[in-house]
């Protein structure tokens, strides 16, 4: 099913999201009124999330950087057409996904990956701690190995499944939000998520004990 398919009017799920959507709309209206600099606030707010989604879809940091920039340029160029039927965030994510999918279709024959370094944080070290009690160097080696295996498994997923699991597990969006972004039903999102998890469990079984 095409990502670019028409999306129904969005109903922002949580109160936080609703507040966020209202704030975004106020900024968008400023940009539409001619305050071009106001768009910087939207870039600053969403650049990391947009980059992260594209990076996990393409598995190439340089491509992800270019595509994220392209996403913001496209959004900037067509912001006058944004009517507020969906939240700005949903609209921006749709642009990001379409841009990424177009890129993946064009470049499916030449795929090479370049990954970001994993920044160690509390919850990841906790996960590693559960797997080994060895020295820091061993932990670092295990983390690198895990990252490679994880990315490798991720790239084996189809783009449709990778999109859904990226938006759900990495970006933390709800089923409903994902459905709005990719233009499908919540049931389809759940189904894709289930199969993607099932596949990854098989690929990562040695880490899941």
């Amino acid at each position, binding site marked *: 099913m095409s990502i670019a398919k028409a999306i129904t009017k969005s109903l922002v799920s949580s109160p936080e999201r609703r507040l966020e959507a209202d704030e975004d709309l106020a900024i968008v209206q400023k940009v539409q009124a001619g305050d071009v600099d106001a768009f910087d606030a939207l870039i600053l707010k969403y650049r990391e999330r947009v980059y992260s989604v594209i990076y996990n879809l393409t598995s190439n940091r340089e491509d992800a950087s270019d595509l994220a920039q392209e996403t*913001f340029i496209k959004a900037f160029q067509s912001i006058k057409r944004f009517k507020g039927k969906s939240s700005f965030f949903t609209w921006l994510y749709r642009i990001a996904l379409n841009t990424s999918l177009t890129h993946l279709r064009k470049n499916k024959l030449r795929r090479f990956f370049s990954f*970001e370094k994993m920044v160690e944080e509390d919850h990841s070290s906790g996960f590693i701690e559960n797997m080994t009690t060895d020295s820091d160097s061993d932990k670092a080696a295990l983390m690198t190995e895990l990252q490679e295996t994880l990315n490798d498994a991720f790239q084996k997923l189809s783009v449709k499944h990778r999109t859904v699991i990226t938006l759900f597990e990495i970006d933390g969006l709800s089923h409903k939000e994902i459905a709005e972004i990719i233009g499908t039903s919540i049931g389809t999102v759940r189904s894709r998520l289930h199969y993607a998890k099932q596949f990854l469990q098989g690929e990562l079984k040695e880490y899941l004990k």
Partner: protein
Amino acid sequence: MFSKRKISPENDVQLSQLLRMKRQERPDDAFWGKFDEELRSKQLSALVRTQSWYERTGKLALLIARKSAAATATLSIFALGIFTISKTEFFSMNPADSVASGPVSEMEATEEPHFAETPIFIVDRQPVSNEVTDLEIPKFDAAPYYEVNALTKGAVPVSYQIIAEPKQFTAGSGVSDTSLGAKVIRTGIDF
């Protein structure tokens, strides 16, 4: 690719923890500095491009007009030539041909009087009054007279050129209507 087997809840939690580790694959601050710089540059280019849209459309229209000028001129000359030629004698319908050519011409020929002979028109002159002026001297004593004008086809291809050759005679002088070798269509006081 996938089977319908269930995912164990314990594994599901662990998998979620594992996948969330991908959140830590983040670029450093230097990356974002470069990213912002490049994006700003692209944004400005896009802004400039957006502003010059009308200008670019105008240029495109001008370019198309320039490129097609020769073709337009050629077509115009050709059309003018066709129009001019169609209006000349070469392509015009010859009346003689039309009689001989098609059924329509034949029908027209039967509906309209066909002059095999030279057409004439006759002016019925009123008898000269008895009032005598200095300028007009009566030639005949109150007897009507006629002025017969022959119509001859001249050099003009389509219309007739009227060459009046007045021949006067007095009524009752024995000259018949066709005495001049022409058939009288209509007579009247004035033409």
